[in-house]
């Protein structure tokens, strides 16, 4: 499979990475080289094979649903690029 330039732009949009029009062609070439490489997998017979979900067999650990951390807004916000009154600040989302 290979991608066209419209698809490259769509992937960039989905990945939330701004891409200039002059970067698209180069990216298309690189992505197609990688896709051609991974297309080798189509020759493997995977009929009846289970998809791996856990590389080491283990029972999913569970814990009590209780509060064991939190109430520490200062630490949470410590690295925020923009903050105000104990909140993260983003551009206006709701009109």
């Amino acid at each position: 499979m290979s991608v066209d330039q419209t698809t490259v732009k769509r992937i960039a949009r989905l990945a939330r990475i701004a891409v200039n029009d002059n970067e698209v062609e180069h990216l298309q070439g690189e992505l197609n080289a990688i896709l051609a490489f991974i297309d080798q997998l189509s020759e493997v017979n995977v009929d009846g094979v289970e998809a791996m979900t856990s590389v080491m067999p283990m029972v999913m650990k569970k814990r009590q649903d209780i509060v064991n951390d939190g109430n520490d807004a200062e630490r949470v916000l410590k690295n925020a690029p923009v903050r105000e009154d104990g909140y993260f600040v983003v551009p206006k989302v709701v009109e």
Partner: protein
Amino acid sequence: MTTINLTALTLADARDGLKARTFSSTELTKAFLANMEKARGLNTYVLETPEHALKMAAASDERLAKGAAGPMEGLPLGIKDLFCTNGVRTTACSKILGNFVPTYESTVTSQLWRDGAVMLGKLNNDEFAMGSSNETSAFGTPINPWRAKGDNKHLVAGGSSGGSAAAVAADLCLAATATDTGGSIRQPAAFTGTVGIKPTYGRVSRWGTVAFASSLDQAGPIAKTVRDSAIMLQSMSGHDAKDTTSVDLPVPDFEAAIRRGVKDLKIGIPREYRLDGMPAEIAQLWEQGMKWLKEAGATMVDISLPHTKYALPAYYIVAPAEASSNLARYDGVRYGLREPGKDIAALYENTRAAGFGKEVKRRIMIGTYVLSAGYYDAYYVRAQKVRTLIKYDFERAYADGIDAILTPATPSAAFGIGAMSVASPIEMYLNDVFTVTVNMAGLPGIAVPAGVDAKGLPLGLQLIGRPFDEETLFAVGQVIEDAAGSFHPAKWW
């Protein structure tokens, strides 16, 4: 006053010297800090923490004086900049993390400090550990202390843990932490004449380590000797309730395992690793390794791992897919870089365009594509099925009585900085052809230096073990080390 070259000691000898009070941790730490200052041109450390180090060393000296020393007491280490360190800048060598200062400590480093180790600073790596030459780092490329005979050209130290490997080889720390998603401990170790072990998936907690591909990532040490790597892995390992994939198994005495020998062990030699066009020197090294192990009493067994050739293409689906999900958190809102935009989507897009480097963007985009509607089954699910087949290959070999598998660690010795810049991304990816199967199957793997090529550059052999049987890898690795000797670059920096 001592006449010992403190920084040339192995970790084990330094430990014993500290316990015997031949020298203090403060003396040892100062010797490393002096070396680091003189070796800044190698670009191994992205952050030196001398004040921190001296404070930790002084505390260690007090504990040593009281006879209350931990197993790593007073031993100065370098920490890959992928491990979060409380109050000390952690960047994953990406611009997008900017001046991120964690308010918590990764489990791996907290265990090292619990055991008394001293932090010298943070080490260079490929951005988010994505790379095989450490050339994708936002801080520039660390330089391999090894150079080809009669040639001044700078070589890469491998990647992604290039800073860790170069720093250990150049005596800028006793040992270093590293991480391995597709070969990032073993390939740089092989390129620098050092020992690197990626333990079984689940042996070491991933908590507080910057995530790349969560089902493949494992931390481990890069050290000067097999024994040193065993001592350090001991401290890094163990169950952690904060990582649900960390395994609740007792950690064996790894150091005790190194003298077990290999008598009567069956060592698998996988025929699929004899690649077309494999350099004669790599093939010879492999033969030499078999000979050493035979002489020590092991039996070589021809085995087949039929899905080997599909491990790398499957990896380039699974790893980017997991990366695209893990790296979604870098959004310019909670930490790190922020580039303004007219709305929230533009804020995200501009931040991520400015903050991520080329290789990281490429992998996020591949991951996004293979997970997108309509392609998920064709790519991701198929890759996870191939992964099951790769794991079956190993399980069959081990069920047939194989104790460990011997392969070359890398397809070549270290290459020049910039040598791959015109190549397709795939050529760089091929560096991991011998190591990536191990991550796909979750198995432990160790790279041990075994010789040099015609240019005098180090080459390594890899041993692959049964799940949670790192002990056999240490035992076999020690036999190779005893036969091959140790490898040190001539100082030129």
